[in-house]
């Protein structure tokens, strides 16, 4: 085939993509339902946790990160860590003012 192009041509089956969509829609429904109750601070936590899970699914399957080379995976991981650090450091600054 096209080995000389060294394209990691992993073809994601339609079935996998459809399953991911169903899970994503399910998670959307779950967050809307849960956040409609007043659970105080838990609302934010649950909504963000579900959003992270959805983001993970989109990155892994829709964006093919699961089948991507190690370099790309490490880079994405580093960007997420960088963003988390920015949030945490800013929050610490805000809290100790």
């Amino acid at each position, binding site marked *: 085939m096209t080995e000389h192009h060294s394209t990691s041509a992993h073809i994601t089956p339609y079935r996998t993509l459809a399953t991911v969509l169903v899970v994503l829609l399910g998670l*959307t429904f779950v967050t809307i339902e849960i956040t409609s109750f007043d659970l105080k601070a838990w609302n934010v936590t649950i909504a963000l946790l579900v959003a992270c899970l959805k983001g993970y699914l*989109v990155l892994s399957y829709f964006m093919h990160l699961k089948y991507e080379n190690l370099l790309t995976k490490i880079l994405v991981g580093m960007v997420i860590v960088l*963003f988390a650090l920015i949030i945490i450091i800013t929050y610490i600054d805000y809290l100790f003012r």
Partner: protein
Amino acid sequence: MEHQAKAHLLEHRDDEAAKLGMWLFIFTEILLFGGLFLVYAVYRAMYHTQFHEASLELNVVFGAVNTIVLLVSSMAVAMALTALQENKVKLSRQLIWLTVLCALIFMVNKYFEWGAKFEHDIYPGSELLRKLEHGHILYYGLYFAMTGLHALHVTVGMIILIVVERRIKAGKVHAEKFVFLENAALYWHLVDLIWIFLFPLLYLIT
């Protein structure tokens, strides 16, 4: 010398590098929206009650419908790539048009959502907003800035997808050379990814 001759025969391209370049661009986009999320987080902590009051004004239905539309479109464009890789050109093009249609629905929906806000005299710098407290102004400012910037990305993504579809039709993007569709799809998934975080932050958490 032999190597040079071979390189001349082979097409000058590097799909892996093209994709890596796209990812680097995506990182800058993540940090762009990340900055806005950060501003939102800090102001939310500072003006907790006012953010709560203001966020109740948003219509969850608009947000939920747009979430569903974007998720479906994201799957459609991922499937378009699968179809092209399997050399099903017609199916791939149909799936890209489905994605564009979803983008259009998203924008129409946004038009009505923003339109309703404008009718209630809620827009940056409006008479009503200027009379409200600081937290309200900040919340709506962030709401319009974040959803507006996102809507701009939806529009750009829509144009890119149409360009890809034209190129597939012209035979320039095909089963052996699909990195352009792959990168366009990555951009579209980014638009979806950002909305996944915008929706709960603006519409659900009150």
